[in-house]
């Protein structure tokens, strides 16, 4: 009995059990203090759909052997440029959203390919180099936002007529188009079929991708490069495909994030974007070498629910906003756990 219990615990994983337990406590407190539990779940679901694709972007780099993609801001920046072009053209609604994605994807492919070339030459230090390449690109793009030739008065500073604003409102563009699409109620919980469907659609697409020949080759290249090479798989090419795919997902992910948030945040906002996504997939049970769609869904649900519910619930018990602190400790603690535990890697 004890043995089976330990097996179950090991199977689910201690971090997941701890966070799930924590969530149960939070929901019990919420129920006891007469908070609306359905409302909490509604908010959490929105956050899951909002962040899901950014977390999904971690899967290709992990499975192709590059590790956690700390260079996620590169994809995010590509997505922002795509969104800006769509907004500059004055597109609205679904047309605006699809146009943003359509503009962002080719940019992300090019950026991702260049990033893959760089990572190939710094094998073993991909995570550290990725982090700082991401950081420095964010800083370069800050100069770009100031100089960029956008003319739409909604986008640029009212005074001076030059340079993009820090935060752009998406209300007149594609703000909340997915969130407000096909919303239905279930036990008092509002579910946006548009937002959740979009996230799950991408999960399905990635799942199917790993059933294709290229996908299987990529998994082999990540799991055992020497063996893969002897089986005639071009490991280098597979890694490039993984990095490009991750960058494209990040670009789409930030567009979905922005439409859900209602604002497009420029300048230093994308700087730390990689860390919550990294933490979420690790909480979901991924390691530096292995990640599945299941890890993405579980991790995003646990992490985002925790972040969403922690603030309103704990503020009933503790003064001040402890959720930001909890986010820092939990997400970085999770990353540390993964970095110190996994074997192998250079």
């Amino acid at each position, binding site marked *: 009995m004890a043995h089976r219990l330990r097996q179950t615990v090991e199977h689910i994983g201690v971090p997941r059990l701890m966070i799930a337990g924590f969530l149960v406590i939070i929901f019990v407190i919420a129920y006891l203090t007469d908070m609306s539990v359905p409302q909490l779940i509604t908010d959490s679901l929105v956050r899951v759909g909002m962040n899901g694709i950014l977390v999904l972007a971690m899967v290709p780099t992990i499975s192709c052997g590059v590790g956690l993609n700390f260079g996620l801001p590169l994809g995010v920046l590509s997505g922002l440029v795509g969104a800006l072009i769509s907004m500059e053209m004055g597109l609205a609604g679904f047309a605006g959203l699809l146009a943003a994605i359509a503009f962002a994807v080719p940019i992300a492919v090019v950026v991702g390919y260049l990033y893959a070339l760089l990572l190939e030459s710094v*094998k073993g230090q991909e995570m550290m180099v990725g982090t700082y390449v991401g950081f420095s690109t964010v*800083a370069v793009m*800050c100069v770009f936002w100031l100089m960029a030739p956008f003319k739409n008065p909604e986008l640029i500073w009212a005074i001076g007529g030059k340079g993009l604003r820090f935060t752009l409102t998406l209300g007149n563009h594609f703000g909340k188009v997915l969130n407000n699409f096909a919303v239905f109620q279930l036990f008092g919980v509002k579910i946006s079929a548009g937002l959740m469907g979009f996230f799950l659609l991408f999960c399905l697409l990635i799942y199917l991708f790993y059933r294709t020949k290229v996908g299987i080759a990529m998994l082999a290249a990540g799991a055992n490069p020497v063996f893969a090479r002897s089986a005639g798989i071009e490991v280098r090419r597979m890694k490039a495909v993984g990095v490009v795919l991750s960058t494209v997902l990040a670009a789409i992910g930030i567009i979905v994030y922005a439409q859900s948030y209602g604002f497009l945040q420029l300048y230093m906002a994308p700087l730390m974007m990689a860390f919550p996504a990294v933490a979420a997939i690790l909480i979901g049970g991924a390691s530096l070498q292995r990640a599945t769609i299941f890890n993405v869904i579980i991790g995003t649900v646990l992490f985002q629910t925790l972040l969403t519910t922690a603030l309103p619930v704990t503020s009933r018990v503790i*003064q*001040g906003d402890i959720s930001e602190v909890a986010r820092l400790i939990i997400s970085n603690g999770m990353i540390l756990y993964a970095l*110190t535990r996994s074997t192998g890697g250079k």
Partner: protein
Amino acid sequence: MTQSSEPKTVESGRNVSLDIRHIILTNGVPILFLALSITMALVAGLNFTFLLNEVITRLARNSLLVLSLLIPVTAGMGLNFGIVIGAMAGQASVIAVTYWGITGVRGFLLACLLSTPLAAITGWLAGLVLNRAKGREMITSMILGFFANGIYQLIFLFLVGPIIPLKSAAMLLPQGIGVRNTVDLINIAQSLDKIWRPVIGGVRIPVVTLLISFGMCVIIAFLMKTKMGQNLRAVGQDMNIAEVMGIKVDKTRIIAMILSTVIAGWGQLIFLQNIGTLNTYNSHEQVGMFSIAALLVGGASTRRATIFQAVAGVILFHTLFVVSPLAGQRLFGVPQIGEYFRVFVAYGIIAVALALHAWQGRQVRREAIREAMLTE
């Protein structure tokens, strides 16, 4: 035996090419930044005395923090992004000293005394964590810094007040829990700098602070000559060989982290006494990045860093820091461009240095494999 001639030529050939690359790598970066600084200073049309004043102040303010990075580099642990943990220890001590109202040099010294055990313990813990992440020390130390920042915020935003007794309306947030975002360090402000600060040719020189930094340079140089220094270097060269030689690798690495964290704590105290105010939740955040960028600008790599590079790096990096917003203002009429350029320089130099290091490491390994195949 007959085959041995061939690998030797390969080796000497590699050494020559490595030497050239080495010279470019160790001196190219500082030369580039020197040129950049001079150009920007000319563009900005800065008063030379003003610039010299700024740079001397910043040299006194930042040297110790940058010096704290040297020991882990020698021990092969790369750039220690975890010095922010030392900075936090320094800040915790300075908050205590301010609360007790101890002023002047006495207050400063007491803060140093308090910060030492705090930094030593946290440095020891950091060392334990990094020993479990060999080969990934840099990313781990960076995440460790973020994690420690969470713990720091937990302590100073939520535990100070209800659990840690600190009863000062001036220092606490209005609701009585948590330390205010800014703490005025009037009690120890400039305590070290103003002991003796002669003005020579319009330039104010904080002699004592500079002497302390110089003293630290001497101590580190001396440490490297001792048995401890040899052990650190041996571990940095190759952990396996060091282990075979009978050096306790894990222990040595932990000592390197403790020393680095303790020096960083003192460094942050020097930094704060110069600035005069503590941004409770921000002062430490950028310390790791700016110190590392400065060291790299001085021509250091993730595997090799000297005292000279640290000092030269501080001077160059901070010259650029002073002139770039002004140059941005002059060139584009937008000061923010210079501001962002400055941020880009800090991040970019780290990215380039890390990439070069990783690339170089691969070249060396590739040569080693080729050599091994040839000898077979």
